[in-house]
């Protein structure tokens, strides 16, 4: 099989190719974005508010399909099977089975902690109690939440703190063994300690999967990501090693944004 690699011999897990996106009201939120996501790496998306970061991220699990009238143009290819996940022929549910997402605000379901994590498995038809137990435990451990909740798995998820709820949502997204995880400002509603927990978690998670994260927090992008993409007004301005972007960006706009001279 032809592997898609870059100069550092890293494998491409997915790639947006010339992606345009139009909201139902005609707003073009993405303009010809081409961006690779590397396997076992964290790619961070930064840029001013309204530049299309969330729009881009949400294209990866076809979230925009939930709202009538939205339109994609271009491709997002998922490797190694070379599937264009935006193709009309591809069922969005199939895509979401492989690419999971954690939202900005924790959004647990009105169910117990256990059932929240088991949800994705149940949706996939798993009902074997042993399998569910094992998977839930593994996912909660993966999200560093197990120790805090192992004695109260039947409690309602809403009784957890905000940071715990967000880790629960990560566990939920993790339980189904996704290939890519999408994070949309996952720590913007959390305090510094909870934020640190989740950042550590992501560095741990990338050993197993690929991560695309939107963040407003420049330090966060610098701390955790391997690659950083800077977007502005729906276009990709620059994409490179995080180190390079934060120390020696090739574009003036990127530098202005990063150094806070922007706008």
């Amino acid at each position: 099989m032809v592997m898609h690699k870059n100069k550092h011999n890293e494998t491409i897990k997915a790639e947006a190719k010339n992606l345009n996106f139009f909201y139902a009201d005609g707003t073009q939120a993405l303009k010809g974005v081409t961006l690779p996501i590397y396997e076992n790496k964290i790619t961070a998306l930064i840029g001013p508010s309204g530049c299309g970061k969330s729009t881009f991220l949400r294209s990866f699990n076809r979230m925009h399909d939930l709202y009538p009238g939205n339109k994609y143009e271009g491709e997002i290819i998922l490797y190694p099977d070379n599937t264009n996940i935006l193709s009309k022929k591809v069922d969005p549910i199939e895509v979401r089975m492989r690419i999971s997402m954690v939202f900005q605000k924790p959004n647990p379901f009105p169910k117990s902690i256990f059932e929240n994590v088991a949800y994705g498995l149940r949706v996939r038809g798993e009902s074997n109690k042993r399998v569910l137990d094992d998977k839930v435990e593994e996912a909660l451990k993966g999200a560093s939440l197990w120790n805090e909740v192992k004695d109260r798995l039947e409690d309602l998820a809403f009784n957890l703190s905000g940071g715990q709820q967000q880790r629960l949502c990560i566990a939920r997204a993790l339980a189904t063994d996704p290939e890519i995880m999408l994070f949309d400002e996952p720590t913007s509603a959390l305090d510094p300690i909870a934020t640190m927990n989740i950042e550590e978690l992501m560095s741990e998670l990338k050993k197993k999967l690929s991560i695309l994260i939107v963040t407003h927090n420049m330090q966060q992008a610098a701390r955790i990501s391997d690659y950083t993409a800077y977007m502005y007004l729906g276009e990709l301005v620059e994409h490179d090693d995080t180190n390079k972007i934060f120390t020696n960006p090739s574009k003036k706009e990127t530098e202005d944004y990063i150094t806070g001279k922007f706008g």
Partner: protein
Amino acid sequence: MNTSVMPQTIISTRLAKNFRRNIMERMIEFALLCSAAFAVFVTCAIVYVLVSEAIPFFQHVSIYDFLTDTVWTPNYSIKHYGIMALISGTLTTTFIALIVAVPLGTITAIYLSEFASHKVRETAKPILELLVGVPTVVFGYFALMLVTPLLQKIYPDLPLFNMLGAGIVMGIMIVPYIASLAEDSMRAVPMAMREGAYAMGATRFQTAIRVITPAAISGIIAAYILAISRAVGETMIVAIAAGQQPTFTFNPIEGAATITSYIVSVALGDLEHGGIGYQSIFAAGLTLLIMTLLLNILGHMIRKKYRERY
């Protein structure tokens, strides 16, 4: 800015403005209080009338007999006042109505909230709510002239007056209440919850049943409780289609009177004012009021237990 250097005149005009605003606020507050007090006053007046007319009734009939006797014959020479004969009719018709309305109403709500396109929803909801405006007399004759004859085709021994037909039509009548209220509470579930479910790879159906319905459960239960109150208090349909013969029975294919249909039949007849038969409708009315009150308390408790938290 430092207030102490502010010229005296400015301060006094500000105070004057504050004073005027305060008066306005007070007046509005008073108006609101008056309308709230009016509602409370009317309720108290109703309770007062019911209780004061029921007291002489209970001097003739002991509360024990009233609650345990199963015969209700105020017009016979041997008079019995066993409210159970009326409660059984009320409960049976209500139960049939719920069997029809809860599934239909809930499914309609789920469909409208989670499956229907914007256009379908915007057309269907007003039509559904129009059904609420149909006078119940119309529903009553609908039961008597259409539903019962249809049921008789399936089950020829069914009498013309029966609780089954009345209950079914009552169910149809309360479908819009359940559908509309349950749909409102499902719509109120934030989009983030839906997105979370879809992002896990859930289908529409799985999202609707496993996430949205539990999230909206308190509103859905509130809708059921309202529907029960509505069914318990429904008068014309049962008066027309279930016959008005007080009978202690839970058999839906029999005819029976309910609390409300008894009240309306007595109220329309020519019972002497102040007689015990006349007073009995207040005892029956009081029973109905207490039943509805209990339902409301139950609804309140359930709602508190399952309060939405998203």
